[in-house]
Every structure is written in structure tokens, then in C-alpha cells.
């Protein structure tokens, strides 16, 4: 679908807020059409990375290429290629769900904004609530609307910052299905999450951000190989990603 093997290419990314260093040289890449999960504890800098990659924040140094465009040099082209669902739901509560989607379609300069809205409402199961103000939606419905707004226009690279935080298990699985469907259609997805199970379920590649750097990244299998099962006696126990995560984070903290 894209000319580039890696839809996202991050090299030596650094960022400090005032004098607090947050990113100390972050490197990773995301294959076009794959799902990439960024894991990290609270305050590790996940949102900071997402904001830099979506042109909302300027890095101090390092380079970021999205779909072949440099975020610092060609932010407009980058914005043409991406779509963001931020950590906190950003829907217009005074407008209805449908109006929110039509607005997005018009801002993306699509030809049939009402049809686009109708299709997305159906796809995210919001048809019944389409003409109610978003203020009356439940948390899960708001998040679905929020994600639907990011799907308008079919950007080739999608960023989801903790898309399932605060959702019940059923709603979470719905979001997972949407993400899988996107990736199935060739969309590149970068998501951050606190839920290790989510990364395990969804991601082709997992990266763990800790103390300003990506300390490990790879497929789930590769991560499992780094940390062989603790005991091989009578039963063979595969470590869960949670154990891997805690082992790494705990280890590095002690140094």
C-alpha cells in the first residue's frame, strides 16, 4: 500500500520539559501495515512520543519520519498521512455523534461527508445514538465516537494513545476488533497501553519504554525468548508479557 517499508521511523529522539528530561534517545520503527504497541509505566513518556509523532510537540533532537515525511520539516504532509486518538476523549459534547463525524469529514475535505458519517456510525455501533448529543453518551460510547472520528478519511497511519483505558471488557474487545480490521486493511497502527494483555493480543511488535529509552522491542516470541521460563521442571510455564515487563522494569530500576 505504501512505498515505505517502515511507516514510522524514529531515531535518537530526545525531549525535556523545561529541565526535566523525559526522552533520552528513543529509537524504533514500525513496519507498514503492522500493529505496534508501546508499553510503559505512568509518566514514562508514551504520550510525549505520540505528541511528537503527530506534530503536536517539537522534539529537542532526533528524527521522526512518518510515511516518508519528516515531522519537523514537513508537518503538513505528515498530518495528511496520520490520524490521532488522544489519551483523553476529544469529542464535541454539544454536537451529536453524527455531527461530530460530519464535521471531521468536512475538515478532511471528503466528498460525501454524510455518507462517511453514516458508515462509521454503523461500523462502531453508534447508529441508535447518532442523533443524540455526545454529552449524553456513556464513557464507552464516547470513546467509540472518538475512535470513529479518527477513522474518518482513512489515514494510512493511526495513533491510539491508551484507546481502551476505562472501557469494560466487552467494549475493549470491540476496540481490539477495530484495530485488527484496520491493520488487515493495510493501516499502520501505533498504540500505547497500560494493559499488557492488550499488547499481547494485538501487537505484531511490542516496545517497552523505560527511563527515557526503548529498552526492548520485538515480537512477543522474541521477548519470550529473552526471558526463558523461570522453571523447567515438570510443567513448562510460558512467561506472560506481564512477567517479562515486570522483570525488565524491576531489573533496570535496581541498577
Amino acid at each position, binding site marked *: 500500500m505504501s512505498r515505505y517499508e517502515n511507516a514510522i521511523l524514529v531515531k535518537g529522539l530526545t525531549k525535556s520539559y523545561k529541565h526535566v528530561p523525559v526522552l533520552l534517545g528513543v529509537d524504533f520503527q514500525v513496519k507498514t501495515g503492522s500493529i505496534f504497541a508501546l508499553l510503559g509505566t505512568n509518566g514514562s513518556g508514551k504520550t510525549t512520543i505520540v505528541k511528537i509523532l503527530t506534530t*503536536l510537540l517539537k522534539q529537542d533532537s532526533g528524527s521522526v519520519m512518518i510515511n516518508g515525511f519528516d515531522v519537523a520539516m514537513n508537518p*503538513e504532509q505528515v498530518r495528511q498521512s496520520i490520524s490521532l486518538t488522544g489519551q483523553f476523549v*476529544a469529542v464535541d459534547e454539544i454536537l451529536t455523534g453524527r455531527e461530530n463525524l460530519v*464535521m471531521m469529514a*468536512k*475538515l478532511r475535505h471528503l466528498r460525501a461527508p454524510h455518507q462517511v458519517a453514516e458508515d462509521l456510525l454503523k461500523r462502531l455501533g453508534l447508529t441508535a445514538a447518532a442523533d443524540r448529543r455526545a454529552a449524553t453518551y456513556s464513557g464507552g460510547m464516547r470513546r467509540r465516537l472518538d475512535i470513529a472520528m479518527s477513522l474518518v478519511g482513512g489515514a494510512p497511519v493511526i495513533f491510539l494513545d491508551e484507546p481502551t483505558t476505562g472501557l469494560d471488557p466487552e467494549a475493549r474487545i470491540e476496540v481490539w476488533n477495530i484495530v485488527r480490521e484496520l491493520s488487515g486493511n493495510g493501516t499502520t497502527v501505533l498504540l500505547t497501553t497500560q494493559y499488557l494483555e492488550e499488547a499481547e493480543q494485538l501487537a505484531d511488535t511490542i516496545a517497552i519504554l523505560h527511563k527515557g529509552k526503548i529498552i526492548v522491542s520485538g515480537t512477543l516470541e522474541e521477548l519470550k525468548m529473552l526471558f526463558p521460563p523461570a522453571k523447567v521442571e515438570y510443567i513448562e510455564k510460558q512467561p506472560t508479557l506481564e512477567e517479562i515487563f515486570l522483570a525488565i522494569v524491576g531489573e533496570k530500576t535496581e541498577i
Partner: protein
Amino acid sequence: MEAIKNYFLVDMSVMMGRSLRHIFRSMDTIITVTIMPIAMMLLFVYVLGGAIQTGTDNYVNYLLPGIMLIAIANSIGYTSFRLFTDVQRGIFERFNSMPVARSAALWGHVLTSLVSNAISLTVIVLVALLMGFRSSAGVFSWLAVAGILALFTLALTWVAAISGLSAKTIDGASAIAYPIHFLPLISSAFVPTSTMPRGVRAFAENQPVTSIVDAIRSLLSNQPVGSEIWVALAWCVGIMIWAYIFAMIVYRKRA
């Protein structure tokens, strides 16, 4: 870049459509903005008016320009508030990660302020007519009055935009309205400045509201307009340009 420039008007009208929906769905803002100045007009004309010597036989005629400016000054707190909410809810972040003309979102709010003020000022003039306001001004004078009022609205709305974008709390966002409320009170809006003690008078005669009020009053009563109209225009345009530049700087930094 070319393509993005061409969409500026489209984007701005989408943004304006959105914030117009906001004001028409909560009519209380327009109603408050309209009723308060009307109540003041009633109070001054029927309670205090008998004791005020302005040198004109019709006090409503004397009062109306100042009342209109008070209505505008009252309304801008709401623009501040709406901008603040958009920043807080992450709506601007969403727009800024999209290929949308940068200042379109702000212009949408500012033009909405213009529309809502046009509505409330029309109602205020109609009430003033019922109360005995008469004007011999011709079409061109009325157009000039409308132009000055529009400029004054734009200037104050951009000032309000600065505070809405930079405020940390909701109270901070609307605080800008308070000092601006005072300007019409210490001006020639209600009584001639010649009746004021010297220090107050010096302030009153050299602040923007007095020259604007005097210019509108001359236009409405078909008197020759002196230099005050140029002073009034200079104030409006000066404040507007300064506030626009400053608001855009704050917006870029914030986003």
C-alpha cells in the same frame, strides 16, 4: 502547501458552523448578553436619567452607544470560555493533528462572536426604539456605526482569545471580562466627561471607549464627526492587530 491554503475558507466555515451551533443550542449566553445591557438601559433612563444632565433632550439617544459597547464587552467572556473548553477537552489538539488550516479554529470562534453580537445588538436597538430612541442618521452613517462596532467586537474578541488560550483555570479564562466591563463605566458612555474630577477625566478622555462612544454618537445624531472617529478606528485596529498576533503566538505554543 497550496492545497492547504485553498481550504482555509472551507475549514473556517466548518469551524464557525460548529461554534454557531454551540451558541444556538445554549441560547442563555445570547440572552444574558442581551438582557443585562437592556436592564442597564432601563435603569439609567427611568431611574437615574432624570438626575443626569447631558445637554441632550433625549437621554436614550445619549446612552445607546455606550450600552452597545457594554453588550459587546459582556459577550467576550463567553468566547474566552469556549476557547478554554476547547483547549481543555483536547479539541484543538485533534484539529492540530489534522491537515486543517492553522488559524481556522480560532477564526471560527471569533466570527461566531461577531454573529452573536450582531443579534444581541439588533435586539438592543429595537428595545431602544421602543424607549424613544430616534436617529436621523442615513444609511452610510449606520453602516459606519456597524463597521465601528464590528471592529470593536473583533478587537475585544481577540483579546479574549488570548486569555481563553492561556488560562489555567476556567475562572482565569473569563476574568478578562472584568477589567473590560469597567472601561465603559469610566467613559463618556453615561455622563459627559466634563462632569468628572480631573484625574478620572484624564483617564476617561484618553481611553478607547470614550472616542468610540463619541464617534458613534455623532454618527447617529447626524452631527459632523471630528477627529474622534480616527482615534476610535486607530484604537480598534491597533488592539485587534496586537491581540491577533499575540493570540496566534499563544495558540502555536499551546498546541
